[in-house]
């Protein structure tokens, strides 16, 4: 098993091979077309009876608001993880690859957040934010989380977003700007996920059962909060839908749950491999629909 420093060096080299700058790579002044915001099959309402009643225009509008909400949740989580990593960086040797990689990752996340912010602004003229309770939990988490909890939580957030975005970037029905934004994110996140896995593995070396139980459960709760924050209630109202009905049908949407479950299969396998899929954690994942 390579050390994190070796992994960090490889990732730095990779970053030198291809890093992307959304500021220069994307023509932010170009007008937006009339594509979908995300693959319709990824809409929280796809497959429900409500979806069947929507017109093509309504569906497109809904997916744009959903995309904006997901991007906003992405920004929120990227801010949290920048702080998590920054807290870790204080302890590192500035000459090490680990240090340089961590700052590179923060820089990537910073660029992504600006990119998502610009995208959201172009897509819709409302703002999305996770609900207050999630925001407060995030505030607490970024202050106290350490070790494998911090890195596995980073992994959870990145991995869930990553698999969705891989579909959206390849989907010709999705607005080209969104496809490009998603690909930029996918490329850079793949390095971040490699690092988060490596850090998680390293920090779990020698961890006992009690610690795995606590960390496993904490990570599962984080996953639950992230998943439930992706598309907020305001999305449906802003898209001109009956929010009560939409929330009710989305919550029961087995199609969406199956998609999320498939997307998180690699993540669950990793958590199982490192011993973080404890029975308590598994119960949370089952409720969230990831297991």
């Amino acid at each position: 098993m390579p050390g994190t420093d070796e992994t960090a060096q490889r990732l730095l080299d990779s970053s030198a091979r291809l890093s992307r700058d959304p500021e220069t790579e994307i023509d932010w002044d170009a007008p937006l077309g009339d594509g979908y915001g995300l693959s319709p099959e990824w809409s929280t309402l796809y497959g429900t009876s409500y979806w069947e009643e929507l017109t093509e225009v309504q569906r497109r509008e809904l997916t744009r608001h959903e995309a904006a909400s997901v991007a906003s949740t992405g920004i929120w989580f990227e801010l949290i993880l920048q702080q998590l990593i920054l807290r870790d960086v204080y302890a590192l040797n500035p000459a090490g690859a680990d240090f340089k990689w961590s700052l590179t990752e923060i820089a990537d996340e910073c660029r992504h957040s600006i990119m998502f912010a610009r995208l959201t602004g172009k897509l819709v003229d409302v703002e999305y934010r996770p609900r207050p309770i999630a925001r407060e939990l995030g505030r607490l988490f970024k202050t106290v989380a350490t070790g494998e909890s911090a890195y596995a939580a980073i992994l959870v957030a990145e991995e869930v977003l990553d698999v969705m975005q891989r579909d959206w970037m390849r989907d010709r029905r999705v607005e080209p700007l969104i496809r490009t934004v998603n690909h930029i994110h996918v490329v850079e996140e793949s390095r971040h996920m490699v690092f988060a896995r490596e850090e998680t593995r390293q920090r779990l070396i020698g961890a006992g059962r009690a610690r795995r139980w606590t960390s496993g459960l904490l990570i599962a709760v984080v996953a639950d909060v992230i998943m439930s924050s992706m598309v907020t209630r305001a999305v449906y109202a802003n898209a001109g839908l009956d929010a009560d009905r939409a929330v009710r049908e989305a919550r029961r949407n087995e199609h969406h749950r199956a998609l999320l479950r498939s997307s998180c299969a690699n993540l669950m396998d990793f958590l199982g491999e490192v011993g973080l899929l404890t029975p308590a954690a598994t119960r949370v994942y089952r409720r969230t629909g990831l297991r």
Partner: protein
Amino acid sequence: MTYVIAGDCCSDASCVAVCPMNSIHPSPGEAGFGTTDGLFIDPRTCIDCGACADICPVGAAKPADQATPVEVELNRSHFATQPALNALDLDTWDAPSFAPWTDGPRRVAVVGAGPAGIYAARELLLRSTAEVTVYDRLPVAGGLARFGVAPDHPLTKQIVTTFERVLAHPRVHWRPGTEAVTAELETRYDAVVHAVGSFQSRRLGIPGEDAARSCSAAEVVAWYNGHPGARLPVELVGPRAVIVGSGNVALDLARLLVSTPDRLATLDLPAAVRTTLASSNITEVVLVARRGPEAAAYSASALRDLQSLDGVDILFDTEGSELSSPPLPGRRIVFRFGTTPEAWDPAAGFVTDAGMVSAGNLFTAIGFAGRPIDGLPFDEQRGIVPNDRGAVLNRPGHFVAGWIKRGAQGGIGANRACAEETVRTLLATASSGALSAAPM
């Protein structure tokens, strides 16, 4: 520097799905997938992120500086005649495909915890909310991934741990050491996926085949892999052994038979197996194939494995040279193509149309056939259960995956696409109401 995929590749294509640059080919659905010797990474577009290595269930994807020059070259040359795909042009990627949710079955039985059965169970867990009961005759999971992969391929065997994690899923009920009876399953499950493999060795049909010191290679493979209940059915008698067949099973066996005690000591073998192999005085293995080298069934990576054996000469004997006298000193593996087996005489040796081969043992490795499953139709000719994309013909509620579905070909990873197809068929059938409407 980039990453490369080595010869241990299982082709289950987990890596293809995580590559952010579309650098790994052939991907499922592309020409060559399943027929090329594993998957390859295009060094022109790989950005060295390591996502493939992180996900690879058999440790075959690795940084180029940890691979052999041959492996690096193989990855490069796979793409030599094709232009590099520009991942930044997103239309060069395959469009995503989505299977809409169907109100699937509630209870499914999967018979067989080998690769096909586990991949089917995994797909069912992801795509439905069904409770999945997995049966296996053996007390442990893994099937051929555990008992068919040679012990000098420990990385490939590593995939068994991935399989075991699927069985730990809360919606899986794991029933090891259980003989599943079709008629009983019908009453208790909405659907049954039979993934029992084809473990019956094909026979040569020559005189003396059942005589002393002759057996199927599969029996030896099961024995050296510690398969429960497997015994070595013959005494190993040197100095020359004949293996009929030119597939990877034949090559695996040849490699083990000519291994020196030093090499055997490095392998994960049951102690008794190690002792028996080390004390056999087999120094030469002759692989006999009816057809020519162009029809050889082994994979290129299996041949490279042989060629990288220290102190073992690999000879391609197409001339029909003299094998009737005892072998020369030294260890070697001889390929003899274009030779038709005629008889086995334990006292004299192996009789072929090209003359006598003096040998102490005969092993046959000419492929596998399925055995009929109680209560299901069976295609004797092909040794499979006749099916349409996994649905057993004329038996609603019954499905097949793996070798019993498509015949004994394709490695571990090929079962993934195969099982996914079966589960798609199963869920589509379930949603059309055909499962509950038809009495099983």
